[in-house]
């Protein structure tokens, strides 16, 4: 198995698009040729194969580099189609590992059909099956209408700020003209960046589809570049539900999956360890999806004692947390409500902190860390005796949930 010859075309085309300017000088041409040559050489010297349950990728002309990915440790297998490749009917298979971004194995540019077969084979091996086992059928769980996506993209906290800025500018500019010109140009720049951010978000999440297959959760989206990601079961480190201020009156929310790895986002694309499971959707859809990814997430939620209001006057409104048999839940935030579910089996370490204000109030915060950089459930401002109790019991509950210790049942 090797990469497709058409890959050269993609590399050539992307290289040709590199200078971007109309006037092609000799030096531009040279750069294009060099980049293209580099791409062709990279393509020509890269070989990969599946050996047992490991994927080996060997590359490099002078300095041979060999990457071995144990597929049983794959965090996700993605099928990515950048726009140019998609036009030519090509795709890239990307295997995400738990380590830093360099550990990702990228199999660049195969024919689309071949790529889907390769992905199915890799996933089959990752689940300990034979690689010839065909991809199991999938069941569609949720589709996000594009209209809703656009509406959500426009409904950001920037709206009142920019409105205020426009009004302020109009008031100030009516008296002095120079303010109008400088402020106006600044505002235009801000609007352009905002529009670009919204565009990027909408174009990556265009025609968002979530499906469930026996080998994992499939997430498909994209307007120009298509991405189809498969997250195997048991790889979800945490699920986060965000309800921004503007979404709440509409009963919408955003669901995110947190996966391990991608600690350094130095790759061309930022490491997508936080994947949208539902970019925007009604709470009912979110509940349905949550039932699928975290079936036993029940936990009795309790509020922190009333004196915590002094410590967190604003966010006390939503502040709730609880620990169930298999899952810890924490709700926080005032303007945007955030709910984090962390399966106890995934907790990496436990921390507790008590600052001077908390100590005088008899409160303490308990954190459950899971793999990844920003992911944790914080049980904020719990009563001190409860925090102590949690610290005593949580290690045991986590061990039981992991299966490394027999449960009481």
């Amino acid at each position, binding site marked *: 198995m090797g990469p497709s010859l058409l890959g050269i075309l993609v590399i050539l085309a992307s290289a040709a698009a590199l200078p971007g300017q109309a006037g092609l000088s000799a030096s531009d041409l040279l750069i294009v040729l060099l980049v293209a040559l580099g791409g062709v050489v990279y393509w020509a010297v890269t070989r990969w194969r599946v050996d047992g349950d490991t994927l080996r990728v060997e590359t490099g002309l002078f300095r041979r580099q060999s990457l071995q990915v144990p597929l049983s440790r794959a965090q996700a297998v993605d099928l990515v189609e950048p726009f140019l490749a998609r036009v030519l009917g090509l795709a890239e298979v990307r295997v995400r590992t*738990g380590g830093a971004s360099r550990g990702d194995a990228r199999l660049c540019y195969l024919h689309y059909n071949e790529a889907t077969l390769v992905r199915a084979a890799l996933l089959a091996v990752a689940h300990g099956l034979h690689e010839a086992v065909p991809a199991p059928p999938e069941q569609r769980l949720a589709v996000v209408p594009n209209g809703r996506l656009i509406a959500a993209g426009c409904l950001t906290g920037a709206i009142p700020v920019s409105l205020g800025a426009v009004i302020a500018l109009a008031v100030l500019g009516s008296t002095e003209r120079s303010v109008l010109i400088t402020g106006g140009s600044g505002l235009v720049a801000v609007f352009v960046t905002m529009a670009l951010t919204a565009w990027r978000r909408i174009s990556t999440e265009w025609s968002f589809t979530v499906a469930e297959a026996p080998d994992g959760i499939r997430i498909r989206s994209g307007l120009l570049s298509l991405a189809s990601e498969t997250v195997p079961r048991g790889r979800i480190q945490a699920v986060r539900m965000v309800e921004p201020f503007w979404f709440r009156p509409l009963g919408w929310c955003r669901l995110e999956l947190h996966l391990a790895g991608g600690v350094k986002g130095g790759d061309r694309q930022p490491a997508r360890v936080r994947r949208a499971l539902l970019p925007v959707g009604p709470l009912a859809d979110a509940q349905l999806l949550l039932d699928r990814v975290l079936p036993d997430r029940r936990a009795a939620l309790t509020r922190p004692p009333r004196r915590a209001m002094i410590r967190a006057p604003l966010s006390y409104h939503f502040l709730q947390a609880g620990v169930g048999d298999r899952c810890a839940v924490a709700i926080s935030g005032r303007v945007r409500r955030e709910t984090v579910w962390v399966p106890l089996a995934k907790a990496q*370490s436990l921390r507790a*902190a008590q600052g*001077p204000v908390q*100590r005088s109030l008899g409160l303490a915060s308990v954190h459950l*860390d899971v*793999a990844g950089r*920003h992911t944790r459930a914080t049980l904020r401002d719990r009563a001190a005796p409860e925090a102590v109790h949690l610290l005593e019991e949580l290690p045991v509950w986590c061990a039981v949930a992991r299966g490394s210790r027999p449960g009481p049942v």
Partner: protein
Amino acid sequence: MRRLEVALGALGFAVVGVVASEVELGLAAAAGVVGGVLVMGLLAEGFVNRRYRSWGYLEREDDLFIRRGVLIKRLSIVPYGRMQFVDVTAGVVERMFGIATVRLHTAAAATDARLPGLAVSEAARLRERLTSLGEARAAGI
């Protein structure tokens, strides 16, 4: 060693203070400066001592328990099975005093488990014990 840091710092300040004030103000002021520095040094010594005493760790059956902090009290519990690797570092000053810092890493970046100021032999013993326990109970990600 922490105590020494403070003492050295105070001494340095005292010398600078003495030199500077002798040049400009005469002996009485110099004595005042020295006295002030000593008082400050003693206070700092007290704080450092408290901070030093607040560090503690306990090797429990299934996890390592670390306690630290005076103003903000922090507790960390790291199950042995979750450790990815153990790191022992000793800087120049640390080496002079024959101590080392042991750091535990898990897959979570937020895990904050470090044990500074262990005697080198104790650090080596802890590292060996933690790695063997980690291997025996490895739980993956």
